[in-house]
């Protein structure tokens, strides 16, 4: 069945046969793989679903813009896309107002368990407001006092897409002006003043489609907050980003231009989020900011001066005279330069045209925007590459070479092509071109957030570009076509291509990249490697092979596959949580006795968040992590067959959970110890104070040293300084 008789079919039939046989091929392909242990993670992952938004887009009116989906119905479809991917089971427990988390869908339970205490007026925390709500959009819309509002849906969509929230409460975390909810700089503010406006919420929705790649996966973010209307941040800035995961924006950041699709809003939001990108990348590589790494400093010509003056350390950024700046604000520091570079690349790409700094542009495009360009012909090139539906178009073009092609060309002339085509062929190509150009245009408008705007303002540039692109596309197809006979001979000996929708290969590629540093690059390389191995059997020409590979990668983007694999791993690991907790508590118990060992600190993974632990114990715990992961995975292997790549991914996942549990365990123990120290102070304060004479207080340092030496409290998770220095300084030795 998989072999085709040459004399029975034309090329066109051969191509449609390829599509028709997809499921059979999948079966054939999977059958070939059965000799190996089938990946457990892949089994858990293979529940691919087509995005409802994609379906809606496919059926939409030709001239519609993506903006027209900004409606309750459109937002619900986007939300459904993410919700469909949620695990069916979860172990969120407890109650939130009238709701039992256990009974709620995964994302609603997850949202409430993380952000349920940060909704609305935090002075009253009156959950009765939400008593007739079951969904996240409903909670938010209650806060806005408008159940029909789109805002609730945008809040929820942002949470689903990015894992953190746009705040709708009256407490601005981290800022000095907001120690208490509802109070800013000592003045009482209405909850409404803290809420983003409808226009601003639209801006967030639009931004959710603007940002790509690095901005989509910020792990440390918690909330984007709005300063009360009319209020400003100190230091003359309109927004701030904090390492603890907050981006705070004031009025002057949230300005739109003549339309809601343009304005400072987009620039400043992406600027602040870029600071988090900078911070997270730096942190992942054991640094402070990515922008402080040598390659970036070399590029931007920044250098650091450090000195001490009058007991104060001063660290300042300076730049060499040859430095080129993307904006005036980028002169402040490498981190401002970084944030400016990323935000302007997306929002004001024209700045790069005037700047003419290709090294910077390449770095930003390739490392932070998936290699995409947002200006001029480069953007057209990306769009054409993405939307020209190679297979279909190639078929139509090839059909023009048939002698039956008819018509008179009004668009293309012989001189447009290097090859000689007849008038009828040119006419056919003109028709194909015009219809494909129309299709591409409507797809771009519907799928790209700036599609309508760009195609409208640069309509003639777009036409010119595609008219130049199309002949090149045709030329490429022309060559192999003239070898049609040879190709058909090859067709006889090979089975049809693998199914584009088959996700097994993509999952396999992802699993092979478990320990890769640059996972995304690794994933694409692995996929190309796997596909090349398979496609080699089919005797395709280079163009066909490349087309298929590109299409497959488009069908299975890194971000989507990564989410699916992570969710599957998470699902499997959830079953191991009781054992992980058990391991942590046992390790803690046995390592506690090691605490007195004086050792060199080993490079460990447990995050003490600025805290302290005795070196012997810390090293002991860190050493237990790989041992415990291995034990747990061995246990799992007794129940399920695991392939080697499954084992690698799960070991990593278990190990991450152990590290996190140990970090949490440490935090609990450390805060219990801090409490015990407080109690100790209360109990021994008078006694200690009696030992400090007024004379001793005259020499501050000696007094403090003496007082600390008299403290007999034995600390395991803090230094004595951490626990008692403020008490000694402010109470015992204060003159």
């Amino acid at each position, binding site marked *: 069945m998989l072999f085709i008789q040459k004399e029975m079919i034309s090329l066109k039939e051969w191509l449609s046969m390829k599509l028709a046989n997809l499921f059979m091929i999948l079966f054939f392909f999977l059958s070939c793989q059965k000799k190996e242990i089938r990946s457990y993670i892949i089994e858990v992952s293979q529940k691919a679903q087509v995005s409802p938004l994609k379906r809606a887009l496919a059926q939409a009116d030709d001239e519609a813009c993506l903006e027209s989906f900004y409606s309750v119905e459109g937002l619900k479809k986007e939300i459904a896309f993410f919700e469909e991917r949620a695990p069916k089971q979860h172990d969120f427990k407890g109650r939130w107002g009238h709701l039992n988390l256990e009974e709620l869908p995964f994302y609603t339970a997850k949202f409430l368990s993380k952000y349920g205490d940060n909704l609305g007026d935090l002075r009253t925390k009156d959950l009765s407001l939400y008593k007739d709500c079951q969904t996240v959009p409903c909670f938010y819309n209650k806060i806005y006092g408008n159940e029909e509002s789109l805002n609730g849906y945008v809040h929820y969509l942002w949470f689903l897409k990015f894992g953190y929230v746009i705040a709708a409460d009256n407490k601005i975390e*981290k800022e000095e002006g907001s120690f208490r909810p509802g109070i800013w700089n000592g003045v009482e503010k209405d909850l409404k003043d803290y809420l983003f406006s409808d226009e601003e919420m639209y801006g967030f929705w639009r931004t959710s489609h603007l940002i790509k790649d690095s901005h989509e996966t910020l792990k*440390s973010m918690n909330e984007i907050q709005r300063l009360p209307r009319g209020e400003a941040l100190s*230091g003359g*800035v309109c927004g*701030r*980003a*904090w*390492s*603890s995961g907050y981006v705070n924006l004031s009025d002057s950041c949230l300005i739109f231009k003549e339309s809601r699709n343009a304005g400072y809003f987009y620039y400043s939001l992406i600027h602040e989020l870029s*600071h*988090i990108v*900078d*911070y997270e990348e730096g*942190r992942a590589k*054991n*640094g*402070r*900011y990515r922008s402080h790494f040598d390659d970036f400093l070399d590029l931007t010509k920044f250098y650091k*001066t*450090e*000195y*001490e*003056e009058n007991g*104060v*350390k*001063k*660290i300042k950024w300076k730049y060499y005279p040859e430095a080129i700046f993307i904006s005036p604000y980028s002169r402040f520091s490498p*981190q*401002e330069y970084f944030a400016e570079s990323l935000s302007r690349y997306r929002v004001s790409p024209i700045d790069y045209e005037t700047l003419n700094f290709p090294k910077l542009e390449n770095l930003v495009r390739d490392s932070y925007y998936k290699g995409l360009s947002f200006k001029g012909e480069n953007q057209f090139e990306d769009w054409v590459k993405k939307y020209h539906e190679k297979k279909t178009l190639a078929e139509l073009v090839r059909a023009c070479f048939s002698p039956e092609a008819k018509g008179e060309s009004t668009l293309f002339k012989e001189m447009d092509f290097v090859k000689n085509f007849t008038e009828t062929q040119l006419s056919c190509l003109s028709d194909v071109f015009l219809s494909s150009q129309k299709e591409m245009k409507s797809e771009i408008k519907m799928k790209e957030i700036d599609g309508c705007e760009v195609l409208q303002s640069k309509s003639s540039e777009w036409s010119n570009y595609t008219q130049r692109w199309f002949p090149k596309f045709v030329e490429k197809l022309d060559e192999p076509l003239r070898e049609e006979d040879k190709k058909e001979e090859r067709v006889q000996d090979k089975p049809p291509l693998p199914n584009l929708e088959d996700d097994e290969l993509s999952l396999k590629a992802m699993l092979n990249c478990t320990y890769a540093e640059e996972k995304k690059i690794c994933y694409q390389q692995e996929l190309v490697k796997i596909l090349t191995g398979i496609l080699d059997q089919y005797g395709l020409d280079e163009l066909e092979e490349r087309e298929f590979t590109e299409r497959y990668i488009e069908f299975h983007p890194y971000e989507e596959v990564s989410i699916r694999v992570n969710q599957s791993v998470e699902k499997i690991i959830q079953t191991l949580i009781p054992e992980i907790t058990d391991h942590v508590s046992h390790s803690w118990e046995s390592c506690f006795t090691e605490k007195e060992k004086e050792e*060199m*600190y*080993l*490079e460990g993974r447990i995050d*003490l*968040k*600025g805290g*302290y*632990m*005795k*070196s012997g114990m*810390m090293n002991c715990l860190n050493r237990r992590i790989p041992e415990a992961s291995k034990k747990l995975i061995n246990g799992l292997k007794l129940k399920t067959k695991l392939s080697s790549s499954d084992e690698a991914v799960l070991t990593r996942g278990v190990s991450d959970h152990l590290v996190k549990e140990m970090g949490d365990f440490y935090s609990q123990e450390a805060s219990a110890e801090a409490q015990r120290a407080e109690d100790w102070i209360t109990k021994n304060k008078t006694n200690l104070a009696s030992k400090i004479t007024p004379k001793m207080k005259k020499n501050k*340092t000696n007094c*403090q*040293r003496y007082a*600390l030496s008299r403290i007999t409290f034995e600390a395991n998770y803090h*230094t*004595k*300084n*951490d626990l008692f*220095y403020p008490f000694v300084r402010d109470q015992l030795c204060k003159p």
Partner: protein
Amino acid sequence: MNGHFFFLLLFITSCSFGTKPLQFGQSTKADIVSNQGQPQKTELIKSNLEILVFENDQKYQLTDDVLTHYWRNPEGEEKFLSFWKKKFENCLTEKITIEDQRHVAGLYELKCQEMGLSVIYSEGNDFIERVVEYEAR
């Protein structure tokens, strides 16, 4: 390798080659150049405050032509705040804000004056950026 070890090593090397050992409060620019060779760069912060920059971002700070501070990158376990907390366990330490958190991660100094040592670290990851040595008090 910690800072004092570095200076001890410098001292021994200097003695065996007949160069003058570097000492805070005493050594001059000429002593540093004689010990370390020509700097890659010099920065004149003020008329009396000069920085000599050597490879691996080592910096010698001179005030009125006298060595006051030595700045360097942390090495090995020195990169972790826990290491320094342990090292400063019996020292009255001060945590000083160097750079406020106007943007993202603040920068702090953990200072142990008795040992003549400070470390500069960043908020969030407790990663030691720089080690500063000076005269112990």
